[in-house]
């Protein structure tokens, strides 16, 4: 990098700048890598919370502990589920038996969980069928 001849002395600063540029690019790339790793880790953590939340809510619904309406939303503002929004949708299943008779009382429940992660909106769904207790 160090030039000793006077005729090429002007080239040295350019070389130094180039070296600094390459080094800076390397550092920036490294930083980006770390940022991506942290983002992936944060997402993995959120994903775990989301799975647990969906599983918990499914158990509550199957235990008849949560009254169901056709559509309901819930948002959390504290705890591990901060910023997550759960939309519960219930729709009757249009099924028939072998005699082509309509089957009543069966519903499809969809749990849709949305949250913001790194500027993007992430959605996770859980779909299951229920046969609510006839009161």
């Amino acid at each position, binding site marked *: 990098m160090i030039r*000793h001849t*006077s005729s090429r*002395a*002007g080239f040295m600063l350019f070389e130094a700048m180039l070296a600094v540029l390459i080094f800076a690019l390397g550092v920036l790339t490294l930083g980006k890598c770390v940022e991506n790793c942290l983002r992936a880790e944060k997402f993995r953590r959120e994903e775990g919370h989301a799975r*647990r939340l969906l599983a918990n809510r499914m*158990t509550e619904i199957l*235990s*008849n502990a949560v009254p169901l309406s056709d559509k309901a939303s819930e948002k959390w503002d504290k705890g591990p589920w901060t910023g997550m929004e759960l939309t519960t949708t219930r729709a009757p299943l249009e099924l028939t038996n072998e005699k082509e008779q309509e089957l009543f009382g069966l519903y499809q429940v969809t749990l849709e969980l949305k949250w913001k992660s790194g500027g993007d909106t992430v959605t996770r769904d859980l779909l299951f069928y229920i046969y609510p207790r006839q009161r």
Partner: protein
Amino acid sequence: MIRPLFSRTKTNALTILEVMLAVLVLSMIAVAVFQFVRSNLKAISLSSEDINNRLALERLTEVVQEEFFSFPGRGQSTLLSKAVKVGGRDVDSVEWRSKGGPGMMTTAAKGEFVVRLRIRPVERDSSRYEIGFEREQVMSDAILASFRSPVSPPEFVPGDSISRSGKPSGKPDWIPLIPDAYALKVRFYDPRLTTEVAGWTDPGARPSYMRLTITRSADEEPLDAVISIPAAIATQQQ
């Protein structure tokens, strides 16, 4: 005008300034790499700790859920729970009877046991707590056999299991499941009250589900899991 930073006319050797500059640059790179590696190691450590916490809860949930699947739909329930607060932290416990299976962590149990899921100090007077199963034999095989026809076994009475079962087997053993826990909260959904309640003392009824809330440290968010009790749901559907 662009000029060389260092110019030498007589010698090709490096000056002390150049060497110092090179060492400085190398040191900066070394420090940067060290910081990078250290922060990565810390991130990995936190990540694996978080994974372990979550897995511990998931595994515990699965074991308890498996046990709950075997609860009979009729007759007296053996599920009992106490809600206790000590110094602001929940130290609840829940117990059931088992003759071997997931809730006992073995299928080779002899006789009948009471299994308690609870939190307790790692050692006497220790400030570190852990969550685990406490297994206590309440009836041996011989006593169980003597209860088989024509006399029915005695009714399960909370807190009175040892005295009614004849000779206890001795000191209960302990299976640690979650080390370094801070609090254990257990809540039950009572379908008659349509709300969650602390503690369960009615052997004549079954809660619809059990909510386990585990806090690993005072400054950490608690994790909770809802565990269904299929026998209760089946009874409700009838």
